[in-house]
């Protein structure tokens, strides 16, 4: 069972010489929500004596992110990911705690801060629906103080990276979802922000479009050194982009570390698949580990990590093994199981 990452003392001082570009210290956000019972009676009571309930959305979340890092922000719906992103972008004020992004306090929304960040939110769009994306890009270029030449250069560069061409001169409403998302990314990145907050940037896209957006983010990070904090329901996004992940559940941070380390943390065992010369009864395998499945001569065992070497040696010595394969359980399976079973609660 996991326990929340303690937030005090504050996040460890990074070993790298650079200062963190994102710092969250004990961030909390509580929403006040009106409660209403169904039916006429409930409506009248709601009208006459409104009752409220405080709902903690984020509780004591602390972490730091170094410049240039790509960090995945994982958690089920309602875990507090988007609320945390909104606090880090200054859209909402934290109830308690503090944040620093690119040297600024987000909720003050100073010019320097707004020019240093961007937030892309899945299906929410900033493009003007009835005009081509180029019109929205012109507006953004003016708002961020880019002259025409520089704006043109950046538009060309982003268009090339995102494989957008004549789509930029078609009304947004006529574009496919994938093309719109790519144009949204262009609009969000035209001012070349140092910190990207991406909330489900590939939501609703088909597999090919997801892969292209993913590749773009890798290229963009490599070219500009931008820092990325990314939430996604697609594990492929996380595994392809994020060496480090933050895991949040019920508003609390439960894990902050390498993606590879997450599977060790969540599942302190490894999966061993055996192909035997002939089928053996289930009791044969009890002394080796937990029997996950038995299908004729094919067996799957879960072996504690610390016993792995010893058990594999015994299996090879004691059983008629034709083939043996050791693997980590898929990360999405682990996280899915984690949230379904509430292991972190």
């Amino acid at each position: 069972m996991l326990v929340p990452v303690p937030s005090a003392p504050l996040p460890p001082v990074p070993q790298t010489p650079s200062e963190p570009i994102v710092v969250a210290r004990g961030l909390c956000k509580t929403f006040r929500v009106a409660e209403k019972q169904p039916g006429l009676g409930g409506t009248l009571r709601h009208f006459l004596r409104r009752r409220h309930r405080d709902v903690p959305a984020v509780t004591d979340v602390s972490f730091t992110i170094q410049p240039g890092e790509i960090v995945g922000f994982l958690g089920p719906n309602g875990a507090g990911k988007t609320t945390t992103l909104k606090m880090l972008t200054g859209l909402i004020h934290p109830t308690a705690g503090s944040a620093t992004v690119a040297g600024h306090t987000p909720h003050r929304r100073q010019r320097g801060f707004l020019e240093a960040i961007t937030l892309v939110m899945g299906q929410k769009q900033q493009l003007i629906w009835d005009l081509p994306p180029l019109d929205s890009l012109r507006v953004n270029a003016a708002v961020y103080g880019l002259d025409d030449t520089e704006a043109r250069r950046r538009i060309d560069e982003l268009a090339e990276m995102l494989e957008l061409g004549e789509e930029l001169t078609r009304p947004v409403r006529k574009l496919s979802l994938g093309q719109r998302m790519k144009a949204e990314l262009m609009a969000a990145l035209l001012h070349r922000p140092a910190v990207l907050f991406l909330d489900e940037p590939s939501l609703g896209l088909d597999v090919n479009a997801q892969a292209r957006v993913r590749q773009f983010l890798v290229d963009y990070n490599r070219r500009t050194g931008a820092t990325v904090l990314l939430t996604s329901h697609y594990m492929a996004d996380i595994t392809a982009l994020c060496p480090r992940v933050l895991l949040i559940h019920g508003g609390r941070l439960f894990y902050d570390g390498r993606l590879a380390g997450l599977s060790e943390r969540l599942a302190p065992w490894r999966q061993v698949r055996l192909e035997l010369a002939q089928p053996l009864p289930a009791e044969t395998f009890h002394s080796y580990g937990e029997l996950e499945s038995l299908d004729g001569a094919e067996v799957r065992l879960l072996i504690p990590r610390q016993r792995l070497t010893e058990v594999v040696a015994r299996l090879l010595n004691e059983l008629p093994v034709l083939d043996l394969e050791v693997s980590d359980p898929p990360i999405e399976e682990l996280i899915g199981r984690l949230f379904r079973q509430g292991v972190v609660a």
Partner: protein
Amino acid sequence: MSTRLSLARGLRIARVLLSTQYAYMLEYRAEIALWALSGVLPFIMLGVWSAALAAGGDDAGLGLGLSQAELARYFLGAFIARQFTVVWVVWAFEEDSLAGRLSPYLLQPLQPLWRYVAAHLAEQATRLPFVAVIAALFFLLQPAAFALPSPGRFLLAVLAIWLAFAIHFLLQSLIAILCFWSERAQALERLLFIPYLFLSGLVAPLAAFPPGVRQVAFFTPFPHMIGFPAQLLAGLEVSIASSFAAMAGWIALLLPLTALAWRAGVRRYTAMGA
């Protein structure tokens, strides 16, 4: 939010925003033409008041002190003033706020209300040819009322219309900002519409109201929003200096109020639907 801009950058943003919004409004030109046509209330009221005058209204104590031609020009002026002071920021802002479209605007280094100002000005530019055609038709149908204001009066009328638009925009923005608290701010706008309708001069010149109402009305922003520019356009006698002073006063009051409300509202913003 610290969004102070240099003049050159501000002008460039204004130019790009206006041209983009104008392109956007042109996509809706047919709808805007219909909106322009739907603003014919002053012409209906002209019919009503003309009938009253023809029936010996002034003798009956209507107290307008206007000839038939002056009355016609007044209501044409009211129509024109209304067309260029129509404000819908409360609906657009509320919709954007509830749909989460406000969030990207809030994350850019430009006060979001400027986008709505640009959209309104672009819409006015789109309305201009339709209004010109309707005015020309009006004079064709009422040749006796034809008279053009002097250039000086015309410029004063243009200035009065811009100031009236500014007052109306600030008033409605103030209500729109209540979205941050109530989520349904446009209902409050309806409350404002009733005094606006009667005291602005849209349904009757203010002279038609009893002296007590006129005095009270003068201390509200409404008579300056339609009646004053309409009187300027119609070439009627009007207290120019005091009306402009009152408009400046209202803007001086509403501008900091709007800024304060904005600052407080943004603190409350919870990015609904975003």
